[in-house]
């Protein structure tokens, strides 16, 4: 009787778990070992590990992987540091504090499609950025059509759109630090700056780990920006792994190969998260 009741409460979740998590995870592993085209399912053949070995020799995918790595390395540290600086500055009482926090936070709630469209306008030949530059006498360009500036432009936008969220997480972490620590340090005569290094940063390490891991996982999956702004161009300079995966699965219907790419990406993300957790020594006592 009691078990039946519990099952009743759990059953909606168990059904969605089976249909949308367990089945897909297993099925995409199977798919990754097949040559499968949904338009022609009768032509399905066993591929074994061929999809995986193909991935390592695929110049387009390698280009996408390098770009994605570049994106992660170029955005995550900058976002983390800027979010931390803003959080520390906003943690004291300032006129307009609530207003400022909202101003930084709102962009993180707005859909990436909207943000991408707005920045596509900013970066366009007739966009506001070029108009501002022309006031300074600097010649403009179509930033997203130039292979040297398109990807950095997308990265800059990503940093802009992400800072507020991580700032908020750092703020929550800052508010959990006991005030007495700072008071004691002040009495001991340590400066504001050395308090940041001796009290604030060590205490923020668990939050910093969350910020870095969450942002890294998200950045490895960068897709919407590319879909809306450049579709991987110009000259594949903005092609990312998930965008490549999407085109292979849903334009060329190479779903077996795309599943192998998805699994490889998942493995990379998982490994990188583990390394980051180890590096930042998750679970160690604060201040050690």
């Amino acid at each position, binding site marked *: 009787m009691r*078990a039946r*009741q*519990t099952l009743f*409460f*759990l059953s*909606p*979740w168990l059904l*969605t*778990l089976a*249909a*949308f*998590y367990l*089945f*897909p995870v297993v*099925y*995409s592993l199977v*798919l990754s070992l097949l040559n499968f085209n*949904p338009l022609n399912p009768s032509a399905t053949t066993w591929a074994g590990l061929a999809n995986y070995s193909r991935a390592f020799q695929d110049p387009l995918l390698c280009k996408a992987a390098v770009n994605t790595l570049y994106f992660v390395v170029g955005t995550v540290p900058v976002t983390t540091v800027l979010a931390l600086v*803003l959080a520390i*500055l906003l943690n004291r009482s*300032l006129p*307009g504090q609530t*207003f*400022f926090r*909202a*101003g*930084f*936070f709102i*962009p993180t*709630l*707005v*859909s*990436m499609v*909207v943000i*991408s*469209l*707005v920045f596509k*306008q900013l970066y*366009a030949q007739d966009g506001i950025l070029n108009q501002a530059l022309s006031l300074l006498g600097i010649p403009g360009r179509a930033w997203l059509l130039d292979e040297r500036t398109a990807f950095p432009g997308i990265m800059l936008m990503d940093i*802009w759109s992400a*800072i*507020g969220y991580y700032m*908020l*997480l750092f703020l*929550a972490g800052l508010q959990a630090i006991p005030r007495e620590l700072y008071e004691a340090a002040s009495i001991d005569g340590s400066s504001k700056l050395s308090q940041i290094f001796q009290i604030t940063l060590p205490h923020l390490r668990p*939050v910093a780990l969350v910020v870095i891991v969450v942002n890294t*996982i998200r950045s490895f*999956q960068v*897709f919407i920006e590319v*879909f*809306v702004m450049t*579709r991987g161009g110009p000259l594949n300079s903005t092609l990312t792994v998930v965008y490549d995966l*999407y085109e292979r*699965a849903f334009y060329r219907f190479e*779903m077996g190969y795309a*599943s192998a790419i*998805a699994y490889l*990406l*998942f493995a990379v993300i*998982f490994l990188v998260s583990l390394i980051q957790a180890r590096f930042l020594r998750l679970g160690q006592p604060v201040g050690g």
Partner: protein
Amino acid sequence: MMKRLLVWAFIFLAFLLSSFPLFWMLFLSFKTQGQFGLQNYSDLMASGPFARYVLNSLVVALFVVLGNVTLAAMTGYAFARKSFRGREVLFATVLGTLMIPKQATMIPVFILMTKLHLLDTYAALILPFLVDGFSILLIRQYLLSLPPDLEEAARLDGASELRVFWQVVMPLAKPALAVVAINAFIVNWNSFIYPLILTSRQAMRTLPVGLALYAQGEHSLDWGHLMSGSALSALPILLVFLLFSRQIISGLTQGAVKG
């Protein structure tokens, strides 16, 4: 004093940089050849099925919010209050679902929906998101922070399990349910890759997908139209933020900081 002023000036500058793009979007959305008004919005509504996109997004978001508030609440309640075999393993599974990236599941889900003839239906856009692991986590966390006294009193009074859940637990969990509802709304309203692959008919596109595809079509350089479409997509989120910023922030920080 001087230092405080410098800090304030720095933050103010950062604030201007941070808010300018969205203000610029609003400005362009109201501007048509030197005039200000709602011309872009009415043109946009006339030029594509944008009203339909908005409707689709609203319908999907409504059901996803209702699903998470009731079904995820049931799950969170079971994890917080019931003891059963395999609870630890199942709860670890909840956490696990949060770590699986979308692109690892989207191809099988696409094939599943194709087989079930559910592509281009509301069901395809709603079912995968009906019970989110994050919602379960929030409810469980909240219920664990409350003593089970009221529920036990209701049971002593002879209330059925369903009644205990519906009339005692649900009202008690209201603050957590609000966080769940708002979070589910924002996530779903902005959701992109799943609605993109699970729909192909224009009439079934959601607002973000319809907007992104509209931007790739022949209208690609009509910034007035594009910015008014963007503003339409952003405004409900801004409204929700103005009304519920406390719940939004509590949801985000609970999710990440307490994990």
